[in-house]
């Protein structure tokens, strides 16, 4: 994934929503080339125990077109902000069993600090702004949709980019 103009970088090739298990290794390979000195891969997983309650599985649902657009804008912003060589995000939807990955984010840069900073920045932004929701399913059959206190940010750089395609 070479550098390019903002327009060419604001594409959906770097982001994916999938109902299959995430291939994190493929994502890491896709974002790396010989100009990269450091690559960081983050994999987020369903824990078997959350806040003391056993969780048998999670399901995720998304506003898919909006989620893809926001993810693409965040990846484009990360590329520019951290001068990345490559960057990509895959989020899983549907049922995710305990121990399986719900998200993978990868970033590569000439130096490691930028790769770490970009990956953490993306995770923070994704957890705030991307319209994907988690539902926790308990062994007793009950389910709980998880919602934080703050709405997603709709006025940031990502929103601006999207309104001027």
């Amino acid at each position, binding site marked *: 994934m070479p550098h390019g103009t903002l327009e060419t970088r604001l594409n959906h090739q770097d982001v994916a929503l999938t109902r299959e298990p995430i291939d994190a290794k493929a994502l890491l390979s896709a974002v790396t080339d010989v100009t990269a000195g450091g690559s960081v891969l983050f994999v987020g997983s369903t824990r078997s125990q959350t806040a003391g309650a056993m969780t048998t599985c999670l399901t995720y649902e998304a506003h898919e077109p909006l989620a893809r657009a926001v993810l693409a804008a965040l990846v484009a912003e990360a590329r520019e902000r951290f001068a990345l060589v490559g960057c990509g995000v895959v989020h899983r939807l549907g049922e995710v069993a305990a121990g399986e990955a719900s998200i993978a984010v990868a970033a590569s840069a000439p130096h490691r600090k930028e790769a770490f900073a970009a990956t953490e920045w993306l995770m923070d932004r994704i957890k705030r702004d991307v319209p994907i929701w988690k539902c926790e399913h308990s062994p007793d059959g009950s389910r709980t949709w998880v*919602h*934080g206190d703050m709405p997603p940010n709709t006025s940031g750089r990502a*929103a601006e980019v999207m309104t001027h395609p």
Partner: protein
Amino acid sequence: MRDDTPTVRVTMFAGVAEAVGTRSVDVPWNGGTVVDLRTAITTMFPVAEPLLSRSAFALGDRYAAADERVPAGADVAIIPPVSGG
């Protein structure tokens, strides 16, 4: 409502859809901003007020600003606080 009443199609997700009991509803709409639309939906579905009060709104595949005008016939989505990742 009469057949020619202007409406917006509102799509709901996650806890909002669960509270309201449906994923999609046509809301009568004579125009106004995103904030006005939130008020109209809250009046229709008071049970969802705790989530609606902290939800954003989307028009098509982009987020809408609070003061943005929503045209009749628009595809609107309610986006409560997210929990992906």
